[in-house]
C-alpha cells in the first residue's frame, strides 16, 4: 500500500496526482477520485474568500490514519490526499482524494470513506469572508451522519 498525504497552500495538478497513483504494473483497473472546490456562495450570500486553518502535524497524521483504515477495509493499491490551507477564492480546488484498486467497488468505497472521515475527523477549520464580514463555518450534522454509517 502506497499512501501519500500532503497539506499545502499551493494548488495541485490532478492529472499528475492521478498518474502518480498508478504503479506502472497495470494491476490497477480502477481509480476513483474526489475534488472539492470553494463554492461561490453560502446561505445565499456571495463568498469573497475562504481561509483554511489546520493543526500542522496532527492533520497529516490523522489523514494518514484514515487512509490506513480504508486500506484495511478494502483492497486499495494506492491512495493520495492533497488538502490546501490558507486563503482560497471561489472556484479554487480545496481537496483531492484519489484511490487506485483492482476493481471499482473498492476504489469508490475507500474514496468516499476517506472523504467522510476527513470532513469530520481531520483538524481543518474554514473561515468564510462575505460582504457582511467573516465567520467560521459550522460543522454539518449531515457530515457526522455520513461518517457514522461506516461504523
Amino acid at each position, binding site marked *: 500500500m502506497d499512501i501519500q498525504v500532503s497539506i499545502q497552500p499551493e494548488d495541485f495538478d490532478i492529472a499528475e496526482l492521478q498518474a502518480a497513483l498508478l504503479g506502472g504494473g497495470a494491476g490497477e483497473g480502477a481509480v476513483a477520485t474526489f475534488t472539492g472546490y470553494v463554492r461561490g456562495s453560502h446561505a445565499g450570500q456571495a463568498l469573497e474568500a475562504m481561509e483554511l486553518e489546520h*493543526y500542522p502535524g*496532527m492533520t497529516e497524521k*490523522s489523514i494518514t490514519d484514515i487512509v490506513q483504515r480504508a486500506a484495511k477495509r478494502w483492497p486499495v493499491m494506492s491512495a493520495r490526499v492533497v488538502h490546501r490551507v490558507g486563503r482560497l477564492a471561489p472556484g479554487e480546488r480545496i481537496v483531492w482524494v484519489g484511490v487506485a484498486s483492482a476493481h471499482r467497488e473498492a476504489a469508490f468505497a475507500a474514496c468516499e470513506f476517506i472523504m467522510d472521515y476527513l470532513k*469530520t475527523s481531520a*483538524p481543518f477549520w474554514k473561515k468564510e469572508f462575505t460582504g457582511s464580514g467573516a465567520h467560521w*463555518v459550522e*460543522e454539518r450534522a449531515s457530515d457526522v451522519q455520513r461518517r457514522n454509517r461506516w461504523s
Partner: protein
Amino acid sequence: MAVRIVFFASLREQLACSSLDWEGRSPQETVASLREKLAREQFPESGAVLLADTVLAAVNQVMAQPEQAVADGDEVAFFPPVTGG
C-alpha cells in the same frame, strides 16, 4: 508539570491566544481538569468558550477524551468541531 497548550480557529480567536506553556502544581491532570483550570486561571474573562460542549481536545496530536491523562511534556490542543474537505 509543564504542558504545551495550543488553540485553533474560533477558540484561538476568542481566547486571543494560539499557544501557551502551562505549569501545573498537581502531578496528575486529565484533559477535563486541565481544561477547567485553563478556563478559570488563564482566561478568567473569556474562558467560558473553552468549556463549551462542542470543544474537542487532542493530546500529542491524537484526539482525546475528557478523562484521558495528561503527562509532563505533553502537547494538548483544544479546538472547535472540524470543517475541512
